[in-house]
């Protein structure tokens, strides 16, 4: 058994698709317990019984569609008109625009490609230091992770069976904290060159608003609909996808009908990758629960760890390592069912746990050696990977500090839930 386990780990490290590794481990487990292997297909078909799951393909599609249109450009212009008068304006614009865009596109790396392509040259042009720009754009690519309606939040809600509405509320303040800390640091670094992007002009705000008139209702309808309880998250996703399709393809015609199948396929490649892992992990999780693995893990940990604080430290270290190896989606699907019962024993609120989990995994996007954002930025801006590592490091440290605060200050996540 141990030999097989080691072999599977080796295969995973050498790049076997994760879902095949998980499926193989589940099948080995079933085999050992004498359960018919048909069970794995029954579990996988359980994908068709999970609530709210349709939100994932629909939001992902909407996000890819938005990033293929001119919407990123309009978003940057609007944010610039609203925030550009502040000192260090463009850096703040970059942070705010990226956070907003990532929330809607699900932290799949499209932000760096869609917005970075506009912001990076603009920052350069405005005289910000090259290394700062690279770090800023790379970091911003996963910044909106904690804001509704990001995919990881939805996925956590589905897996942990926690109210997705609650998660959407809980993410707001911790997400703002990250933004504020990064903004503060950006201003500090550029204290010699804190020039505003331009004077505040009502005319420019008006023009930018008019230009984005078609997209403006989107956040209000989606977020308003979800927060007020009018839409379930899957309904909000359907409305978003249909609306974005209508606006970008039929009204603004920035994307032709001909391009549509390619964009759909591209977005569904990510969705297929996430959902098939979810499918096979339904089988492996079930096996692990049958085999009492969470209980055994808890027994093992409770000997070592007695207080909630120590547990949280241990959790953070674990998530940091996990984030450096696994992408956020696989990590949620695989690890949340194991961590959830243990965290409950230490009195960690399950909504707060979700925020901590995602915030810590966000660091994984930027952690060498395999952080996804690092590679996308290196590829997109044609910079050696080592340079991207160095440029991103200070941002990574700031974010790490914010994750520590978020972890040990549960009130921050739970504040908006109580009211």
């Amino acid at each position, binding site marked *: 058994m141990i030999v097989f386990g080691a072999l599977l780990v080796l295969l995973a*490290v050498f790049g076997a698709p994760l*879902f095949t590794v998980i499926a193989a481990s589940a099948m080995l487990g079933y085999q050992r317990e004498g359960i018919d292997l048909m069970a794995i297909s029954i579990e996988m078909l359980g994908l068709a019984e999970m609530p709210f799951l349709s939100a994932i393909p*629909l939001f992902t599609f909407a996000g890819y569609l938005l990033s293929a249109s001119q919407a990123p450009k309009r978003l940057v212009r609007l944010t610039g008109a609203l925030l550009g008068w502040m000192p260090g304006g463009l850096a703040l614009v970059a942070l705010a625009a990226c956070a907003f865009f990532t929330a809607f596109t699900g932290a799949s*790396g499209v932000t760096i490609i869609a917005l970075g392509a506009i912001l990076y040259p603009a920052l350069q042009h405005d005289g910000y230091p090259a290394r700062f720009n690279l770090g800023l754009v790379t970091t911003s690519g996963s910044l909106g992770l904690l804001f509704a309606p990001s995919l990881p939040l939805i996925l956590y809600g589905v897996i942990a069976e926690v109210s997705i509405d609650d998660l959407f509320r809980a993410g707001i303040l911790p997400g703002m904290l990250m933004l504020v800390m990064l903004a503060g640091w950006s201003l500090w670094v550029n204290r010699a060159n804190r020039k505003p992007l331009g004077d505040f002009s009502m005319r420019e705000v008006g023009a930018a608003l008019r230009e984005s008139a078609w997209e403006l209702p989107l956040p209000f309808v989606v977020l308003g609909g979800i927060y007020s309880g009018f839409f379930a998250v899957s*309904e909000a*996703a359907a409305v978003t996808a249909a609306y974005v399709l209508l606006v970008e393809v039929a009204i603004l015609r920035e994307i032709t009908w001909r391009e*549509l199948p390619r964009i759909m*396929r591209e977005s569904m*490649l990510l969705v297929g*990758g996430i959902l098939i892992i979810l499918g096979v992990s339904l089988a492996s999780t079930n096996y692990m629960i049958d085999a009492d693995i969470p209980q055994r893990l808890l027994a093992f940990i409770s000997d070592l760890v007695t207080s909630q604080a120590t547990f949280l430290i241990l959790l953070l270290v674990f998530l940091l390592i996990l984030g450096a190896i696994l992408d956020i989606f696989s990590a949620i699907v695989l690890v949340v069912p194991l961590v959830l019962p243990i965290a409950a024993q230490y009195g960690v609120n399950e909504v707060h746990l979700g925020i901590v989990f995602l915030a810590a995994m966000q660091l994984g996007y930027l952690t060498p050696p395999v952080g996804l954002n690092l590679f996308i930025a290196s590829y997109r801006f044609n910079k050696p990977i080592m340079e991207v590592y160095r440029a991103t490091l200070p941002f990574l440290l700031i974010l790490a500090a914010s994750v520590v605060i978020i972890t040990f200050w549960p009130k921050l996540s739970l504040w908006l839930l109580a009211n």
Partner: protein
Amino acid sequence: MTENSPPLTADELRAPPGRLERLGTALENALLVLLLGAMMCLAVGQIAMRMFFQSGLIWADELLKVMVLWIALIASVAASRNQRHLRIDILSHFLPARIARLPGVIVSAFASLVCAIIAWHSWRYVSLTLEFNDTVLLDTPAWMVQGILPVACVLMSYHFAVDCIRNLAALVRDRQGAQVPQ
């Protein structure tokens, strides 16, 4: 999520599977477009009915969930074709392409085998539901919904096998290239 497949050479693109590849890709795209479109229409229609007529179709929610299953599996087949499955991506970034070929062969062979095993067992399961005349979604026979699982697994197994053979061929070619310096 990252594209880590080495770019295909012109030869490989013109190889016999070329036409099959194009046909398969087109079929996947068509199905994905249809399913996504139907999903949007159904969900939006459902909201409209709730808002204006205070009613809705009882089976709509279940049908949406089935569509998610189908999208998941078809997209997963597409992801195997384009080598876009989520994986731990440590070595591919650091190993030179030539050295990465051997693990590539082993890993694809393993993936192909696992998919084949799942395909076999889901085939067994589906034929069982066929035998018992299980139904889902009002009176739809269950096999029509569940049949996608063995089909998708067979296709994925095929794609991984093709990938394995490609890597193997490239490995052999590298060898020969190394022995016969030009």
